[in-house]
Every structure is written in C-alpha cells, then in structure tokens.
C-alpha cells in the first residue's frame, strides 16, 4: 500500500513538474478553465437576475448546488482524468496500454496516475468562488454535523463521477467509437444536478433519482443544508445517502473495470 502511494506520487509529480515548465502556458490554461465556469454561471446568473427565481430557488441557493458540483467534478476530473474515455481510448488505439501492462506496477494505478491536469485547479477555484457566493447570499445555519457532512457530500460526488469515468474507460476495451454517449452521465449528469430537480419533467427526475442516483448526490443534501422542504416527499434520510450512493457506484465501476481488464485483447498496434 505504501509502495503504491509512492508510485502514484511519483507519477503525478512528474506530470506536475512538466506542466509547470511553461509558466505562461499554464497560467493561460488555468485562466481559460476559470473563464469557462465564470461565463457559464455568469450567463445563468445574469438571466436569473431578471427572472427572479428558478423553480422556487433563489440565485444563492442555485449557487450552492452549482458551486459544490463544480468543486467536486473538477477535483474528480483531475484525479480520474486517465480513465476518461477519450484519453484512455487513445491509449488502447496507440497501443501504449500494452507498454503499461509490461511494467511491474499495477495497471489500475498507472492509468489512475496517467492524466493529471493541474490546470483543472482553476475550475476547483471557480467552484470555491461560486460556493462562497452561495454562502454569502443564502447563509447556512451551521451545526457541527453540517460541517462534518459537507466534505462527505463532495466525496460522494467525486466517487460517483469517478466511477462513471471508469465505466466509460472500460467500455473502450470493446468499442472506441461511441463512448461519447457516456458524456450524458458525466458532463450531462453534473450539469443536471446544478439545478433543482423540481425543474425537470417527472420521467427525467425519476430516472436521475431512482435509476441513476444523481439526485441524492447534491439535490437532497442541499435541501438539508439550506433547510428547504422536499416537494417530492422522500423520507428524511434521502439527504444523507450521498456518500453511500457515490461509494456503491464507484465499487460497481471497479468490478466492471476488473472484468474488462481480464477480457482485454490488444489491437496489436
């Protein structure tokens, strides 16, 4: 375990050093990832300002949803980038995965540490800014439990989306084309849960609550933190299953990954 950790640290360290080599380039990259969040949330905020509220949620309350997703998703993207279908699919196509297989280090660990983009810290930072904005606009009645629970909610989302990245990456063992559809769950799912679930049509809301447990990751915890009633009348514990839902999806993804590895046949390139 300690050996694995030091290998991971070295894999990441080398990438971080090389990315910091060109300071201007790095600064620009960070700036443009921050700008992405700024324009996306900015456009929504400017329009919401005219309309007042969306589905009964104020700007500050939506900022809570948005900020928390942004922080979690960007952190996940930084950690799990190697499993993202486009980059992992490329490794299979180019045959570099076979090189990794020859090394005496766990393949999963190598893929895990293969695409660490430090510039994504820019998006984490924007997420923090939006979340700060939320706290300023909609003050929360903090309790010790809330302070302890908040990072677990973020962890739940990191595990959930990380799991979907791993599933998408595993699918490229069989098909390289077509994995863009996994984006519906990753980018689509994260985009879906930055808004209150009440704005969606019933079939969509049910799908992302009971089939894909995305609503439990952010919407239900937010109801608890912001002291809002649940319009759909789920039991109170719905607000507290975020880490569990994320953990289960992640576990299933790891099992699927193992299965995929066992059946992997090189393209021979």
């Amino acid at each position, binding site marked *: 375990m300690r050996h694995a950790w030091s290998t991971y640290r070295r894999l990441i360290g080398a990438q971080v050093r090389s990315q910091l080599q060109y300071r201007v380039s790095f600064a*620009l990259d960070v700036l*443009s990832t921050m700008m992405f969040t700024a324009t996306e949330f900015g456009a929504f905020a400017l329009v919401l*300002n*005219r*309309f007042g509220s*969306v589905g009964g949620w104020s700007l500050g309350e939506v900022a809570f949803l948005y900020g928390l997703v942004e922080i979690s998703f960007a952190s996940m993207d930084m950690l799990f980038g190697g499993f993202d279908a486009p980059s992992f699919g490329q490794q299979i196509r180019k045959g570099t995965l076979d090189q990794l297989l020859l090394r005496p280090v766990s393949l999963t660990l190598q893929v895990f540490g293969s695409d660490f983009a430090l510039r994504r810290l820019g998006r984490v930072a924007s997420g923090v800014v939006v979340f700060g904005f939320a706290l300023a606009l909609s003050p929360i009645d903090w309790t010790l439990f809330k302070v302890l629970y908040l990072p677990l909610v973020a962890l739940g989302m990191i595990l959930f989306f990380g799991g979907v990245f791993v599933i998408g990456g595993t699918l490229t063992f069989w098909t390289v084309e077509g994995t*863009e*559809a996994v984006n519906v769950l990753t980018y689509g799912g994260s985009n879906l849960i930055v808004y209150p679930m*009440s704005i969606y049509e019933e079939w969509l809301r049910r799908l992302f609550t009971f089939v894909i447990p995305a609503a439990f990751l952010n919407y239900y915890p937010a109801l608890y933190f912001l002291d809002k009633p649940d319009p759909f009348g789920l039991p109170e514990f719905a607000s507290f299953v975020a880490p569990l839902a994320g953990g289960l999806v992640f576990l299933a993804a790891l099992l699927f990954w193992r299965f995929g590895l066992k059946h992997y046949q090189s393209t021979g390139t």
Partner: protein
Amino acid sequence: MSSASSMTPILFAEIARRSVRRHFAYRAAAVAGLVTNVFFGLLRASVLLALLGDRGSVDGLDAKALVTYTGLTQAMITYLSIFGWYDLMNTVSRGEVASDLLRPVSFLGFWLAQDVGRAVAGLVLRGATLMAIYALLFDIFVPTDLRAWAALLLSLGLALLVSFGFRFLVNLAAFWSPDARGIGRFAFTLGMFLSGFLMPLRFFPEWLQTAAKFTPFPSMLNTPVEVYLGVLKGRDLTLALLTQALWAAALLLLARLVLSRATRKLVLQGG
C-alpha cells in the same frame, strides 16, 4: 504563395466534397454525439422553461420559441465548431503546415473548402437529425414561408463564414505562440458566451447586449437562431444579415493579412 486567385470553384467544390465524405465516415461517433446533444438540449430547455415560469413570453420569446432555441443551438454545435477548432493549429505544431503552404492553391481557400465540407456534414448528420428528433419530442417552431427559409439559409452561410474567419485567426496564433491552445480555449469560451449559445442574448442586461454587438460573436449563432424563430422582421432582418456579411468580409480580410505575416515569418525562420 498566397495567390488566392489560384483556386477555381471546381477545385473548391472537390475539396469540400471530399471533406464531407470523410466526416460522414464516423457514423457511430455521430450517433453517440447526437445522443449527448439531444440530452443537453433537454436540460437547457428545462432550465429556460423553469425561468419563464407562468409568464407567457419574455422579449418576444415564448415557451415554444425557447424550446426551439435550445434545439437550434445544440444543432449548430458541430456546424460552427462551437466548442473549439484546432485543426490548423495542429498542422502548425506538427510542422505539416510547411508542405501545405507549398500547394499550388490558396492556403486560406483550401482550409475554407475543407471547413465548408466539415460544416455541411455536421449540419446534415447532427443538425438536421437533431431538429428532427426535437420535432418528435417537443412542440417546436418551424418557419412556414419560403422567404423565411431563404433568409435562414443565407444567414447560416454567413454565420459559417464569420465563424471560420474567427477560428482561422485564432489558429494562426500558433505561428507566434507555443501557448496557442490556451489562447484558443480562452477565445472559444468567450465566443460561447457572447454568441448567445449559453443563454439567449435578448435575456442579457442591456449593457452586455450592447457590448456583444461590437463583436462578431452574435453574427455566428444568435442571428441565424433569431432568423429561424422569426423574431427579426423587415428592416431588422436586413440589418442583421448585413452585419453578418460585414463581419464575414472583415474577418476573412484580416485572416488573409495575418496569414501573409505568418508565412513570411515561417520563411524567415526557414521553417
């Protein structure tokens, strides 16, 4: 080398035709992309409808128009390469650009022809298909008279020229800077915001709408969308199309100018 006259319409059409065929080859990827595009359109429609609430219409856009807007913007992602386009930049960083410049055809024309092919494939495979799926799922607005369709076609064509001019210029940055990709990401993000891709420009505060008017971005996406929705009429319509044409001409001229500087630099370096 930059003798732009050395490209016949036949050659242009042939390059464009081959580009269409190349882009039609990735069908599975197109289907997967389509699924994603429709899903995001659905999310964006939900947000706009929730914002509209029980107001009948805001700034001339009612529920039907707003749903149609989300379909149109999603349908134009591939057509206009809204999320970014780095093809030219890649040939510069790989050094292939040197041999491309030696071709006996106009460099700008060569890329424009390829881009027209890419865009047409995108418009058919992604754009039209997406709108057809949208029509099945939602009650969307469809222009009925022939003149509206003619205006739409003209506006779409001009939008592509504006978009190409802008993307080509951004990519030329690669001749000067190893950080061109970062510059590109920055520029395309700004474009998404000011072209009305994220939210209808009409919903933005007055000052921001005015600021956007001084940029070519509304001419890329906002104008064809408003032409389709029929919210531009008479003089406003003519003015919008004229603005598009002016931006197209200005950007393409600027692109030629910057390109000739870029190639001179390449020669100096013995690239």
